[in-house]
């Protein structure tokens, strides 16, 4: 496939050219906060090099808040109106490769099997994914421990490798060819190819945990003492799951406003006290221990059993942001190796 070079000073032209064919979604800089994926518009500063913490791209495909349907009532009349997003050709740029792989996990949940989610499907259809490989690997990444990352490449349409003053655009799917048609792109030199290969090798060997055979799913035990250890310090917040690119849980709520009702969906997490709390007062996970266990078992065991993919792609957000330093790498180390972990930096 036809790989290309994008000189960084031509990035704007490249995005404009894409904008003529696609709706372009990319991480946009914000004040005091990680960049957020949105459809870019005038005045937005796009961060394409993956060098900084960013919100997970799921925020675009599975918005934190989304109206599902509206009901209007008039005397003797009830009208139900689903609110579906448009299916437009889109391209999402600037996401880390583990985030792009996390979208594969979301695809399994929302598109495959018995239930196909029309809202997610509408945004996801015709959406191309372009991942970025930053010049420096992030300290918290452990992607290569979770899976054979070579398998991830065809799941995106292109990867942009940050080679300093230029991006190396590797086209990784047939439809990805449409992304590199712009005449402002150059042909890669053999040096560029070597630079790209070097970054890929770094990615493949970065953050590999001491035991890393990637088979956490065989070793996670329901009754492991580690669950109590995490649960004791975990404060039961939404950071690890709301920031996780593959966590998919949501809540559905109805809200009455005068004569109309809005049904919306918003985030939810197995870490919250009222998650799956039933009307009867029964809660299948009554305290933090089963909640802490659920997060890891779901990602590494249940999702693997159910879909054949590992639910965690090693993006490191929960590692970096957990308020009490529950470090998923350390947990896996302890569970799988049953020895004191090496510092995993």
């Amino acid at each position: 496939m036809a790989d290309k070079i994008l000189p960084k000073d031509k990035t704007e032209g490249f995005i404009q050219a894409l904008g003529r064919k696609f709706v372009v979604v990319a991480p946009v800089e914000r004040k005091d906060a990680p960049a957020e994926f949105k459809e870019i518009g005038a005045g937005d500063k796009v961060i394409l090099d993956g060098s900084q913490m960013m919100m997970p791209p799921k925020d675009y495909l599975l918005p934190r808040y989304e109206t599902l349907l509206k009901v209007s009532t008039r005397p003797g009349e009830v009208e139900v109106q689903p609110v579906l997003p448009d299916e437009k050709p889109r391209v999402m740029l600037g996401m880390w490769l583990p985030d792009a792989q996390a979208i594969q996990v979301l695809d399994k949940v929302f598109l495959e099997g018995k239930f196909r989610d029309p809202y997610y499907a509408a945004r996801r259809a015709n959406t191309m994914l372009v991942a970025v490989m930053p010049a420096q690997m992030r300290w918290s990444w452990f992607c290569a421990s979770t899976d054979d990352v070579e398998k991830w490449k065809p799941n995106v349409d292109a990867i942009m490798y940050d080679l300093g003053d230029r991006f190396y655009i590797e086209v990784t799917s047939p439809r990805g060819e449409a992304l590199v048609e712009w005449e402002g792109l150059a042909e890669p030199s053999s040096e560029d190819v070597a630079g790209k290969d070097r970054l890929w090798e770094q990615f493949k060997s970065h953050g590999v945990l001491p035991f890393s055979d990637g088979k956490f799913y065989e070793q996670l035990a329901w009754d492991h003492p580690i669950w109590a250890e995490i649960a004791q310090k975990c404060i039961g917040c939404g950071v690890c799951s709301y920031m996780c690119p593959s966590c998919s849980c949501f809540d559905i709520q109805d809200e009455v406003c005068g004569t109309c009702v809005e049904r919306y969906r918003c985030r939810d997490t197995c870490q919250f006290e009222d998650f799956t709390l039933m009307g009867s007062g029964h809660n299948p996970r009554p305290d933090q221990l089963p909640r802490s266990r659920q997060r890891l078992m779901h990602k590494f065991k249940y999702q693997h059993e159910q879909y054949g993919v590992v639910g965690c792609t090693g993006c490191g957000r929960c590692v970096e942001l957990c308020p009490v330093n529950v470090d998923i790498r350390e947990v896996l180390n302890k569970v799988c190796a049953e020895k004191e972990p090496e510092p995993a930096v």
Partner: protein
Amino acid sequence: MTEIESRIREEAKKVLENGLVDLVIGWAAGSVPFRTTPVFIDNAQDVDKLVWNPVCANNLAVYLPKMAKNRKVAIVAKPCDIRSIVALIQENQVKRENLYIIGLGCAGVVDPSKLESAAIRLSDIKALEWEGEGIRIVTVDGEQVLRSTEVHREMCLACTKREPALYDVKFGEAVLPSQIKPRELPELPEERQKYWSEQFSKCIRCYACRQICPNCYCEVCFADRVEPKWTAKKAVPEENWMFHATRAMHLAGRCIQCGECERVCPVGIRIAELMREMAEAVKNKYDYEAGDPKEEAPLLGTFRENDIDPAQHSE
């Protein structure tokens, strides 16, 4: 290991061995050198896990209402953490007699994101130590000392109460900041409204700010109530305003300025700045400071004759 660290460990060992407490809550080394993690020790053999360094950020008082309910607990605590403990005692959430407070003089805590801004690669860091008012950072290529203004948490840059106000035993000396960081809020009400709108609009309602706050101990928070539904769960600007404004009011006269809410917010909302604003208003209007052992009762639970009458007073 510093001298203070070893004294903390000895003390923890002593109180566990002589049966004074059943549990010691402190900080242990984190998974990376620029973080620590809460640790709960019930066996004197494990006291060597305890550490004390400039990344001991967590306010461990958050664990007390549950963990010290029916047993005696020793807690290793910074001065701000101790103010939380005082507030919890005043609000009847924990009994003084159930606590053994190992208080520490403080020299300010580091905000690791500032290290990144100071062009230090987090993965290169080996250790952080106090050095006068600043911080010595030991990395793989050597060491350097950064000024407190470059690396301390925002809340620490505004903190002058660096001596423990209540303790059973105290180690270490406070290092006071030579300058106090002023508040940065815009002056005009319209500008403030705009500032906070922008801040709150980022909120993803993960509730980490609430969960980490020692004073947000309500069994069911208003934000989780369905009937009445005070605020919807959806993270949209108007509902976020409702959540933050209500939470700020619930903590007025109760927030002790530890800055934990702001530290844990994944989207950088300046919550502690808002809390500082509230605390100053409380101080100016009622001459009350939350977490001060001299105050006998919570502000909102007391009436004093010279209290401002809100009907007479609008601003």
